[in-house]
């Protein structure tokens, strides 16, 4: 099993290398990087390109480690018991399988994504150490040992909201996806818009990267915003010349609302342009 990018996903050499290291050594791969750099998409793409099923676990601030294994739905059971249902006797019918359990019992090797692990409580990664190491756990209610048939390929993403415990980190490979440079971004755009006119692409990237350089932006536009913007440019049939103003800094690019979504950022941007014009 080797991953080498795909038709729909541009993976740099160092990213594929990290992915393959994780696959070969069967260790988790921790992925960090700015928003929109394709962290979540990576797991989907690896699964698709290796032809493996994908099990996704999107973590929220209230997510508990246990939920990835299984949950015991005590409330339903209580209700059923008051209604005198017969299935109450079987505790097993109130055990709800979590993402990891589903992956563990999968017939084929699989890919598991634990997305945005840093959203959860600090203890969350620690609570999963043993389970992820051994790929097995115990169900107390039914006294049952669940063991993975195949060790899944495990991707974990983080947006750096919390630091992760050292013991957890030592078990992972780590890759930080850098914000794509112009060349990589060109490839990414080509993946999404295969027939795009090179001049339009060039001008658009020029505007995009310049915009990202504006100091003090609350939210720099990311890959997804660029793609949205290009879609709009195409839909409106905006010619490349419009993007290429002689004095870049003094013209508002068309449909810039797709790039800057934060109202304050739009104001900041417009003010800068306004100042640039006055100084002309």
């Amino acid at each position, binding site marked *: 099993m080797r991953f080498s990018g795909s038709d729909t996903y541009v993976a740099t050499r160092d990213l594929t*290398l990290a992915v393959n290291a994780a696959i070969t*050594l069967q260790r988790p791969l921790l992925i960090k990087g700015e928003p929109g750099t394709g962290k979540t998409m990576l797991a989907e793409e690896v699964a698709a390109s290796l032809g493996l099923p994908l099990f996704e676990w999107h973590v929220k601030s209230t997510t508990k480690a246990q939920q990835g294994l299984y949950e015991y739905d005590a409330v339903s059971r*209580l209700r059923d018991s008051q209604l005198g249902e017969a299935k109450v006797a079987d505790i097993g019918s109130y055990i709800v399988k979590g993402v990891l359990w589903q992956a563990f019992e999968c017939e084929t090797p699989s890919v598991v994504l634990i997305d945005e692990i840093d959203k959860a409580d600090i203890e969350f990664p620690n609570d999963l150490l043993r389970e992820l190491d051994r790929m097995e756990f115990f169900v107390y209610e039914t006294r049952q040992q669940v063991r993975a048939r195949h060790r899944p390929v495990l991707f974990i993403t983080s947006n750096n909201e919390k630091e992760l415990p050292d013991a957890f980190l*030592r078990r992972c490979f*780590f890759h930080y996806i*850098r914000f794509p440079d112009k060349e990589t971004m060109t490839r990414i755009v080509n993946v999404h818009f295969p027939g795009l006119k090179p001049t339009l692409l060039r001008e658009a990237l020029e505007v995009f990267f310049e915009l990202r350089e504006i100091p003090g932006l609350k939210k720099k536009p990311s890959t997804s915003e660029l793609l949205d913007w290009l879609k709009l440019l195409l839909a409106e049939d905006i010619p490349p010349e419009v993007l290429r103003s002689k004095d870049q800094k003094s013209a508002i690019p068309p449909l810039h609302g797709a790039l800057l979504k934060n109202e304050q950022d739009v104001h900041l941007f417009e003010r800068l342009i306004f100042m640039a014009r006055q100084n002309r």
Partner: protein
Amino acid sequence: MLIDFFLHLKASRLPVSIKEFLTLLEALQQHVIEQSIDDFYVLSRATLVKDETHFDKFDRAFGEYFKGVEALPGMDVLIPEAWLRQAVKRHLSDAERARLEKLGWDKLMETFKQRLAEQKERHSGGNKWIGSGGSSPFGHGGTHPEGIRVGGRSENRSAVKVWEKREYRNLDDSVEIGTRNIKVALRRLRRFARQGAPDELDLEGTITGTARNAGWLDLHMRPERHNAVKVLLFLDIGGSMDDHIRVCEELFSACRSEFKHLEHYYFHNCVYDRLWKDNRRRHSERIATQDVLHKYGNDYKLIFVGDASMSPYELLQPNGCLEYHNAEPGATWLRRLADTWPHAIWLNPESEQSWPYRQSTSLIYHLMGGRMFPLTLDGLERGMRLLSK
């Protein structure tokens, strides 16, 4: 084999562990990469460094180590033999390989070492590929585009290596706090603010527990997440450091809601008998430092922010202050404050290296019992860790 490299990283103060080093060896053994040094760079980084703020440090250490390679005794100690073998196989033509086979592996290694020695003697700059001229089994002309490069000097490089570009420099957490990394700083500060743990009723836990208990009440408590931390912020304002001070002030105000109490006071250069709360009215509305001393309990954490640079007179002499007559020297006041609030630190926007060279800075450093930290992410973290003990 690669132990030296590992030790070098450790010596460069990267938090690498044996477990991770073993993983790296395992990865090499399983041929995750082949012979390329660039791949080795990526693999070793992915295995050993788990925090992008350490990437820059790693890049430097990696560069140092692999620049020094030609000076190390015996390349074979450093590069696993299998690795070399493969490299040789991959990059040589059939004819060359045949010649090589005649030569035998040992002989090859010897030639290899000899070449290294020659290189060292010649001290020639630029890329240095093993072997020169058509006579070498290692390739022709010494510049096979994908050959095995060993060492090489920084001048005259054809390609700058990734680790030499220092692209992760701005992720390093020893740079000062500014608008770019203020968010991260904020998160670290928040973590500090969220301590202290009186219990509160865990409603959800109680319901689940009660259901589990088939209806018998089962109370659950949990530690309260919220802030018990009280902070007094003393800011040195009205000098060249104003920008830094302001960043710091913003930083703390941004998590005001996380602290139980946050109070700030201004001073200039050093604390004397007066402080003020509103910098625009610093001359009209002064508050006696004595009053402040009595107002806040000793459970407050005291944080000074200032560059601690002044004339030593301002610290040591009565009336040493430039602006008005102070009956007692600054040092006395500082000591008094630090005695009242034992949890005190000083954050200094000046770089840590410069501290020992400034008389006033080292005086204050000692007055604070060494609890002075640079105004960087890392400094903030160290300071907060100390305060939360």
